């Protein structure tokens, strides 16, 4: 329907926004709102991504390019592949994730929609967590699609405890997206935000990246225990999630 009816001057006198709200309670319980806003924001982001496919398409093509280019560049044998695959796969995911991280916030500054969130009573951290969870899902989809390709291109066979790989994937992905979401929000108001995000994000992600790469390599080669690196990743996630949640409201309200 494309009809654009005018606001009718003959509307009933009680047809104000108060009348619109006559049927509901004026004040809702604040404690019931927090998960509500988080879920609504997450679903809104997933819906927008489903319709535009901006982030997921860019990530997939970028990661696919990295896999193909690296496989032609190195032509690794089985042993070599197990040693370098961890590094390659996580670097590919890190670079690809930056594309998604930029996209999620770009939507919020178009039409200044972020201001609508800022003038609402919704908690700032709900926005942050929804964005981080959304990015986590996008990057997880990327990993699920790209990992079999890595296995095929690099002829990989896992010699260590393979059941730990999903644990590393979850911890590593969260490490990337929690910082990425936070620093993407910081770089939102800078002039060259596409450049700023990797400049801030990559150095701070080095400990996490080291943990992901080393843990993956150990499991692929089956040489020793990856416990230290997994614990490092878990601690990194805990620390940076706490820091990001503590500072996000300040970032959101910054001019």
């Amino acid at each position: 329907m494309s009809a654009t009816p005018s606001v009718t001057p003959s509307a009933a006198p009680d047809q104000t926004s108060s009348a619109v709200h006559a049927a509901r309670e004026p004040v809702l319980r604040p404690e019931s709102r927090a998960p509500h806003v988080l879920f609504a924001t997450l679903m809104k982001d997933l819906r927008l991504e489903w319709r535009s496919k901006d982030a997921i398409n860019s990530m997939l093509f970028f990661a696919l390019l990295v896999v193909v280019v690296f496989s032609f560049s190195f032509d690794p044998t089985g042993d070599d592949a197990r040693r370098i695959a961890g590094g390659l796969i996580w670097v590919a995911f890190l670079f690809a994730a930056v594309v998604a991280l930029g996209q999620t916030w770009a939507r919020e500054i178009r039409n200044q929609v972020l201001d609508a969130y800022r003038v609402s009573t919704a908690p700032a951290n709900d926005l942050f967590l929804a964005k981080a969870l959304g990015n986590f899902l996008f990057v997880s989809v990327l990993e699920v699609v790209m990992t079999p390709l890595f296995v095929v291109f690099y002829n990989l066979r896992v010699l260590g405890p393979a059941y730990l790989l999903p644990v590393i994937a979850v911890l590593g992905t969260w490490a990337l997206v929690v910082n990425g979401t936070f620093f993407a929000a910081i770089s939102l108001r800078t002039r060259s935000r596409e450049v700023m995000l990797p400049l801030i994000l990559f150095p701070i992600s080095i400990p996490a990246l080291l943990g992901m790469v080393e843990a993956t390599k150990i499991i692929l080669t089956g040489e020793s225990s990856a416990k230290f690196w997994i614990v490092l990743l878990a601690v990194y996630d805990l620390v940076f999630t706490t820091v990001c949640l503590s500072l996000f409201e300040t970032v959101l309200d910054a001019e």
Partner: protein
Amino acid sequence: MTSTPAAVPQAAESVPAVVLTSLTKQFGRFAALRNLSAEFAEGKLYVILGENGAGKSTMLRAIAGLLRPTSGRVSVFGAEYGGLDSGRGILGQLGYMAHPSLLYDEMSAMENLIYSARLYGIDDEACCAAAITLVGLDPLLHRPVGQYSQGMRQRTSLARALLHDPRLLLLDEPFSNVDVASARGMVQLLSRMRDAGKTIFVVTHQARLLAQAADEFVWIHCGSIESRVTTLDLEAVQ
């Protein structure tokens, strides 16, 4: 971070809706607002007038809590930003319509309003549909907002601003690109809301539309209030 929404004192006759005290806002060396002080009573419709760059939108954004003043204070219904609740209590009381639509272009009007409603803890689709109908649009219109005309987007944006039944409405250029008939309809809606006790600020260059409805015309010049009058000098707004 606090999510408590209702820390604002309830309406009392003696408490003005908005009090600006020595409000100054500088962007670098440029002072958008200069030592601006004013009181605005509750339940009135104020029209903010002035040239481009006079500071009208900046004043509105400061009242909405979107700008931190360089100096001075903003008090809304007796509560100040930067207080114990960081202004969150004030926010539940105000509806803000900016010059940009504050809407997601990829979603329909109804989807946008349902999401906005949830930001205020409202889980009532009928309420969103009623708000869209109130501004003269069809809630069953499934086209994304990005495909709407500018006028339809303005009206959707107005519906979003009044969705949570705010006591204070801040509207920045609500009539731009809206056809005359629809603009008159919006003015009538604003008059009814004022009559229902809402305080409304309208920044506009189309003051003639509000000549009959407004309670006060506030002229801003170079970041300061130049004059406040109750009747519009039609020659002055030529």
